[in-house]
């Protein structure tokens, strides 16, 4: 009885919810595909033919490609670093015995709830001191590790790598580093991939800190969008063309890796 197929009502309600979820994306494209005069008043759901005209205007107004490249550099570096350092620390916490392990891991868990974002003022002073204001280092370096990443990798590695396997590698003369590299890291691949996707998206969408340290000449894509929107006169077909273009990369990631992302959210719920 519990297993029977649900009624049309269930599909109807879910369908409405998903349509509502997708609508703002479509609306953004819709406005971007028209010109501004059409926007005033008459409502339609049929796209116009002006998208590429508007897109070209975006490229003329902000350094779009540079911003896109910057976002890829920043998010890529941050992702690589977070995944690698989290896996390394997670492996030590999950599989190695050392004095202070319990206390140190408790520290990681407690810091999960600490809003480090509120430390931006000293961070800003430090970046000014190092001469990194306006440079990509300023948005990369403060995001190289997360407590969540360490926690996540540790939880996964506890079960994924049997203790016997680590011991066997040690017997065979593997150093701990080689044990990590050849035994733990391959086993951690699924969790590392999920952590990577989430870190990438988070970094890609980050706004407050990049807005503080970067400028209009060398922005990430989010900062560039803000510059596009904050002009004296708002040309929505222009602004939403930029928004649409900036959303395409994450949308592609989502379409390709959606299954893993869904699984990641649901696993995070169970383990967190």
């Amino acid at each position: 009885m519990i297993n029977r197929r649900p009624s049309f009502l269930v599909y109807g309600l879910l369908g409405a919810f998903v349509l509502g979820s997708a609508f703002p994306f479509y609306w953004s494209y819709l406005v971007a595909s028209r010109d501004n005069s059409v926007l005033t008043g008459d409502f339609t759901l049929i796209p116009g033919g002006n998208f590429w005209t508007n897109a070209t205007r975006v490229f003329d107004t902000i350094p779009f490609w540079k911003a896109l490249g910057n976002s890829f550099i920043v998010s890529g570096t941050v992702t690589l670093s977070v995944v690698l350092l989290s896996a390394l620390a997670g492996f030590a916490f999950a599989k190695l015995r050392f004095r202070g392990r319990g206390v140190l891991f408790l520290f990681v868990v407690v810091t999960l709830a600490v809003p480090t974002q509120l430390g931006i003022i000293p961070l800003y002073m430090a970046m000014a001191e190092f001469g990194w204001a306006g440079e990509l280092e300023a948005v990369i370096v403060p995001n190289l590790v997360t407590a969540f990443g360490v926690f996540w990798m540790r939880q996964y590695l506890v079960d994924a790598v049997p203790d016997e396997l680590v011991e066997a590698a040690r017997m065979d003369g593997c150093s701990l580093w080689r044990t990590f590299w050849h035994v733990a890291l391959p086993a951690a691949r699924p969790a590392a991939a999920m952590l990577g996707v989430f870190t990438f998206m988070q970094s890609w969408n980050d706004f407050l800190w990049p807005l503080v340290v970067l400028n209009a000449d060398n922005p990430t894509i989010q900062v560039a969008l803000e510059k596009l929107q904050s002009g004296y006169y708002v040309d929505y077909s222009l602004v939403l063309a930029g928004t649409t273009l900036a959303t395409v990369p994450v949308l592609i990631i989502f379409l390709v890796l959606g299954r893993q992302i869904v699984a990641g959210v649901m696993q995070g719920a169970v383990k967190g």
Partner: protein
Amino acid sequence: MTAVLPKVDRGREQEPRPRPPRRYRWTRLDTKVSPYLFVAPFFVLFGAIGLFPLLYTAYVSLFDWEVGADDPAFIGLDNYRTLFEDDQFWNALFNTFSIFLLSSAPQIVVAVLIAALLNENLRARTGWRMGVLLPYVASLVALTIIFGNLFGPQYGLVNDVLTALGFGPVDWQASTFGSHVAIASMVNWRWTGYNALIVLAAMQAIPREVHEAALVDGAGPLRRFFSITLPMLKPTLIFVIVTSTIGGLQIFTEPKLFEPSGGSGGGAEHQYQTVVLYLYQSAFQGLDLGYASSIAWVLFLIVIAVAGLNFWITRRAVK
């Protein structure tokens, strides 16, 4: 340490040929030191870029510290005294909590409902789950720009629809309550599906036997939902509330960008200025780093207090 070494020794004894002592010393060193080297990058980096700035914020808040000042003057708790008499700060605090309540309460109800629907024996199950999660990939900047357009007071779609339905247009930007509703709807749009998946995961962790037993006892679907599902979801719901509180109290992007060409954001009358936005404006537009630091530190304490309170309630609830 002592717990590890004998184990290694035993392993060595079983080996047919003893390795040279140098190699052995190296292995001992590796066993002792490497674990610390593995966790060190996290602790060093987190200390330098996470924890230290946070603590140093408290230090800066004790100074009259302008951007670029060579010799900031120590003024003790003066920034805090000013802050507690600052109407803008209390207003920002009110706005933050107002937006947070408007976004969290409906969001959790709808998330549980959607999770219940997703928990049915659906065709194309993963497709539905992806559909629900779609808003999660939108950047806050993109989302706010789009919603700013939808909630535009003159040509916005929301007002067009309201007018067509016979309700007058609402000035979503100028009115306090209207702007809070509009901003809360952005938060809801982005996070409801995400939270629905978390709740769904918890629903699936409920043992089938419990449901089947209730079924045998003649409990209908509604009765089973309220008497079994909901009570067993309690820890997860509290988890969702805690995480959304920590995030919700730091809301920034939406009020910053809600109104296009809205200057520094937050509304002309500060009607939707939030605490982090006020912090940002004080530090990087007012250039008063000391005062902004006192805002940051007070908000930090509020977040910790609220998170601690949540944690305390969770433990009681789970017991």
